[in-house]
């Protein structure tokens, strides 16, 4: 039996890439898949994945749940659970393509769901909180069922394999989105398995991550006090929950999120003007357990935008490029040049400097 994450530790890098159209123009998934090819060596075939935003316009009012099931029995069990509180608007196998490089796939399904009013009323929860709790419940209590993503008008496509093969497997060229993120995995501490590939998503938040966070347990202990369960024992999962907690529950903005998880050093804060010093000190003090240490470069996807961020020491690489209405982010410049050979402005953000890109209001 193959051991899963958390059952084994392998003491032993990754690639990230993203593109977004500020004017909300939808792009096929083909280009983001190709961008991962020159960064092939950054992964080792044990995980690849993509998140696409704006891909389900015909179902944009429903929560799109992507699922992995270990077997038919657990799929049935999960559907029974879902029907208690959701209307299943549509359910279907996620279209895939049989290719030799992707094997041992679980049952991969997608559902478009609408929470029942009666369920929301009885739990006295707003819709998003209810959906987040449903995902958390399934991942924790229904053994062999994994919610891969559960946001509106977005979806995560991930697998064990090299990212370019994963993109081919999921037929991403058939989807169109205004924003795409991508990940190639090189698991350093844990084995690769389907659920452990990136992106990690909750509601419309998704994270792709290159790095290894040394504050994982401190972050996990804090976030689990607020109802999140870190079931996958991989550091990236906790970043997704931190983003959801700070943005959705605490109402912080994206800059503030960056100032919490990649807080400047006290010596750097000391040099700021009084107002800024007060603001940064407040965030570092109140959310001290959410400071993420160790190397990371992450791309956070969300409805209508994305944010790219390096750890404050910039221990991982990240490059940003712009051309017309599009912004590109990647671990390496070559990946950006695959998507746009004729790039205008190409630069590396500083450690802890959040690059926030939003689609024009009303265009997504």
């Amino acid at each position: 039996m193959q051991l899963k994450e958390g059952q084994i530790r392998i003491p032993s890098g990754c690639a990230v890439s993203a593109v977004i159209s500020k004017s909300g123009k939808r792009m096929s998934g083909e280009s983001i898949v190709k961008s991962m090819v020159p960064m092939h060596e950054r992964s080792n075939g044990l995980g690849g994945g993509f998140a696409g935003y704006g891909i389900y316009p015909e179902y944009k009012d429903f929560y799109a749940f992507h699922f992995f099931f270990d077997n038919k029995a657990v799929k049935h069990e999960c559907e029974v659970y879902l029907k208690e509180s959701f209307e299943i608007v549509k359910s279907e196998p996620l279209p895939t393509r049989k290719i030799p490089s992707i094997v041992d796939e679980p049952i991969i399904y997608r559902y478009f769901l609408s929470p029942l009013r009666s369920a929301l009323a009885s739990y006295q929860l707003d819709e998003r909180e209810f959906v987040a709790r449903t995902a958390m419940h399934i991942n924790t209590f229904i053994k062999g069922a994994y919610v891969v993503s559960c946001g509106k008008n977005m979806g995560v496509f991930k697998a064990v394999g090299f990212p370019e093969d994963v993109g081919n497997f999921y037929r991403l060229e058939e989807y169109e989105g205004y924003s795409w993120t991508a990940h190639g995995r090189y698991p350093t501490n844990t084995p690769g398995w389907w659920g452990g590939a990136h992106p990690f998503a909750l509601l419309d938040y998704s994270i792709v991550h290159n790095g290894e966070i040394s504050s994982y347990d401190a972050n996990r202990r804090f976030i689990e006090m607020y109802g999140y369960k870190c079931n996958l024992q991989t550091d990236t999962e906790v970043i997704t929950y931190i983003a959801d907690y700070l943005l959705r529950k605490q109402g912080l903005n994206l800059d503030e999120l960056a100032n919490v998880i990649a807080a400047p050093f006290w010596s750097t804060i000391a040099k700021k003007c009084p107002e800024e010093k007060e603001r940064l000190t407040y965030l570092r003090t109140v959310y001290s357990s959410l400071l993420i240490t160790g190397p990371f470069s992450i791309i956070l996807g969300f409805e209508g935008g994305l944010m790219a961020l390096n750890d404050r020491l910039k221990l991982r690489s990240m490059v940003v490029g712009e051309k017309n209405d599009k912004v590109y982010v990647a671990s390496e410049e070559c990946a950006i040049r695959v998507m746009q050979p004729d790039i205008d402005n190409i630069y590396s953000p500083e450690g802890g400097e959040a690059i926030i890109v939003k689609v024009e209001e009303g265009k997504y």
Partner: protein
Amino acid sequence: MNLNTLDYTNEQLNKLIRNSSDSVVLDNCLGQRFIGAGLSDKTIVVNGTPGNALGSYLNGATVVVNGNAQDAVGDTMNEGQIIIHGNSGDATGYAMRGGKIYVKGNAGYRAGIHMKAYKEKLPVMIIGGRCGSFLGEYLAGGIIIVLGLNDDGKKIVGNFPCTGMHGGKVFLKKTADAIDFPSQVNVHDADKTDMEEISVYLKEYCKAFDLDIQKIMDTQFVVITPNSANPYKRMYVEN
């Protein structure tokens, strides 16, 4: 010999370069790693964006890049020359122990981290624009020069330059930027002797990028050296 890099795998490409008796021109380069690694002869001209660890362990060859380079240029290089007509990424000249790296544009974080000198080996790195944080971190030997020719209004160097520096010399163009150096280094205005020491490299640099040497020689630089009462020194083995 001209090679269209798109026609080969990374491995094939590096094998062709290694086995070529002639100079090599790589066209359409896009992320291929370890180009020129360990080579002691010939000239490699790269058109495009070479991948990480360009010229690592370089042992005498010359690499010219018409474009930007990515991370870890000249990692542990021993001898030779890398000339970049663009920017270079993080950890440029990582643990370099000989030879020269000349960058026309900017360099990323940790440029020259743990460069070292030994006997006749003296690595030299010149950055035309600016550098990110941790420039010359753990510097043990060699010369790093940052010319500050960038015009984007950003500081010539990021935070924490020369942290852990216990050998070598760093020259920075004197600017109005507030730069905090650790107490373990000394900072002084470059004098005539300092400039004479680097003039031969600056001439070479200006020739490579067609710049006016006099203008650079007339620039006021500051020089950073380890503090002679250096507490770091006791943390490392004497040699």
